[in-house]
């Protein structure tokens, strides 16, 4: 089945040649993959931070380290060719970083309470 394109008239010219056409399905799928694995990473790193007994600034630093590790995992998954799969270069580090932070804090506090308090 041919993919639907997101741009204007096919074959339209601008000064740099024909406009690129993007597959909506591919863009949506790729962002969905990032979202799924960001949530898993935030949950798992929150659990690890709670288990390790991290508190305060070191906990947030641990989150930053895990975000960078996840960025490396995604870059590897894309075969170091990010532009083939995504429009925005900063997504590997910055995708859903605040949403992930909230999930991280949730699991961090919960596991810290479970392991070190009770």
């Amino acid at each position: 089945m041919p993919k639907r394109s997101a741009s204007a008239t096919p074959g339209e010219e601008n000064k740099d040649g024909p406009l690129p056409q993007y597959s909506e399905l591919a863009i949506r799928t790729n962002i969905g993959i990032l979202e799924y694995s960001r949530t898993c990473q935030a949950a798992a790193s929150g659990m690890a931070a709670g288990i390790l007994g991290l508190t305060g600034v070191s906990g947030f630093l641990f989150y930053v380290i895990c975000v960078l590790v996840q960025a490396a995992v995604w870059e590897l998954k894309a075969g170091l060719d990010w532009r083939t799969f995504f429009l925005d270069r900063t997504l590997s580090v910055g995708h859903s970083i605040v949403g992930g932070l909230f999930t991280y804090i949730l699991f961090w506090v919960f596991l810290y309470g479970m392991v070190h308090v009770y």
Partner: protein
Amino acid sequence: MSGGSWSTLVRSLCFIGLISLIHCAYSAAQHRSYLRLTEQEFTRLPADILLQTIVSLVLICYSAAHVAGDFLPIRADTQVRTKSWDTVGNCPSFYTFDHRAKSLSPYFAADLRPQ
């Protein structure tokens, strides 16, 4: 990489990582209660629990990224250039099928009888 065995491998890796992390949580809780019983201070976890936690975290991050499926290339125009019309224009729902055996039907001859 074959699709089915790769996806089961990655799913089982994710599951193993999760079980390992839960095991670390249990070990850390046990360690804390041991320290409380022997009235020692808690400074840090033993090295083996620490190592197991880090390894299972990295395992979960890696396998979760692969469980979600493959990345699809987003450029529709450059992809299509390498494919033939037979591949792209193939639409199985629109196949037509004709056969001479319809002439064996009892209702077929009625339409051909000369007037």
